[in-house]
C-alpha cells in the first residue's frame, strides 16, 4: 500500500492501516531515536510516543511532506525533547569511569563467544557513544539521519526544516568534530 492510501485510511481511523504504519516504520523510528539518545529503553518510549502522536494528529496532516518525512520530524523533536529534560541530561552527560582506566569492563550481556571480542566490542561501543555524545545536538541530528537512515541532504532538510546548505554545513562540522575526537584513536592504531 502506498503512503497516500495509507494516510487516507489512517485519517478514516482504519485500525489495520495504523498497524501497517507501525510495522513499516517501527525500526526506522527506533534507530533514529537510539542514534539521538543512545538509550534503548528511552528509544522504545519515544517510538511509542511518535506513533501515538501520529494517530492523534493524522487528521491535521496536509500532505506537504511525505509520511516518512513527517515521522522523521516528530522523532527528531521527541528525541531532542528527551535530551532537554534536566534529569535525563544528567544521565546523558554521565561518562563511565571504566573507559578512562584503559581496562574496559567486560559486558556480561554480550552473547559473543570470545571474551576478547566482547571486550573489543564493548570498547568500540563506548567509543562510538562518547564520540556521538560530544557532538552538538544540531550536528548530531543531521549526522544520525545521514549515517543511520541514509537520508539524502534534501530529505534531511525537509525532516528538520532547514536549508540544504545548512544540512551540508552541519554535516561537515559533525564530521570535522568526529575527526578531532577520533584522532587519538587513529594515532594509537598506527
Amino acid at each position: 500500500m502506498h503512503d497516500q492510501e495509507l494516510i487516507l485510511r489512517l485519517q478514516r481511523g482504519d485500525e489495520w492501516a495504523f498497524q501497517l504504519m507501525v510495522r513499516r516504520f517501527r525500526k526506522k523510528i527506533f534507530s533514529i531515536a537510539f542514534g539521538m539518545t543512545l538509550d534503548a529503553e528511552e528509544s522504545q518510549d519515544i517510538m511509542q510516543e511518535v506513533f501515538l502522536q501520529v494517530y492523534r494528529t493524522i487528521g491535521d496532516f496536509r500532505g506537504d511532506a511525505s509520511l516518512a518525512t513527517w515521522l522523521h520530524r516528530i522523532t527528531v523533536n521527541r528525541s531532542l525533547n528527551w535530551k532537554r529534560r534536566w534529569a535525563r541530561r544528567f544521565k546523558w552527560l554521565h561518562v563511565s569511569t571504566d573507559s578512562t582506566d584503559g581496562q574496559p569492563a567486560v559486558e556480561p550481556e554480550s552473547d559473543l563467544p570470545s571474551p576478547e571480542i566482547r571486550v573489543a566490542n564493548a570498547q568500540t561501543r563506548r567509543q562510538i557513544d562518547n564520540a556521538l555524545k560530544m557532538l552538538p545536538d544540531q550536528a548530531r541530528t543531521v549526522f544520525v539521519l545521514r549515517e543511520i537512515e541514509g537520508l539524502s541532504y534534501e530529505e534531511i532538510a525537509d525532516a528538520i526544516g532547514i536549508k540544504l546548505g545548512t544540512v551540508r554545513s552541519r554535516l561537515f562540522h559533525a564530521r570535522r568534530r568526529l575527526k578531532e575526537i577520533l584522532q587519538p584513536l587513529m594515532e594509537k592504531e598506527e
Partner: protein
Amino acid sequence: MTHPYADACDEIRLDRYLDGDLDAGEMAQMEAHIAGCLQCRRQLAALTAFSHNLRDRVHDAANSVDFVALEKQVLNKALRQYRSRGGLSRFIASLKYTIPATVTAGLMLFFAYSNYVLKPPPLPSAIINSFTGSMSSVMIFETPETRQTILWYTEETDVESEPNAV
C-alpha cells in the same frame, strides 16, 4: 590533465565524496588525490569505520527490542485513545441536538409557568365599601382561590300573596 585536488586536501570535497555527492569528474579527481594522500586516506578510513560501527551499534540495539510486543502496546494505547476520543466526540455530537431541545423546552416551560401557573388573580369588577338602601339577603360565594363574591338583593314583598301566606 592535472587534477586540481591531486595535491590539495579539501575537507568539504572529502565530505561530499563520502556522501556520493560528487559528479563523475569530481569523483575521479578526488580518488586520485586520496590515492596519493595518506592523511585523507586515514580520515576517510576513520569516518567510514565510525559510520559502519555506528550502524552496527544501532542494529544490535534494534535486534534486542521485542518489536512485536511494542506494536501490541502501541495498538492498545491507540485503541484506548480512539475509544475515549470517540466517546467524547459522541457526547459533543449529541450536544448539538440536546442543547437546542433543552433551550426550547425551557422556553416553553417558562412561558407556560408564567402564563398559567403565575397568572395573576382576576381583579374584582367592583369594590363596594358602603351600601345604603334596602337589602334583605346576602349571599357569599367562596371561590377555590378563597376569593369571595358577595351578592345582595332585595326581595319585593308579594302583596297579594302575603295575606295568603299568613
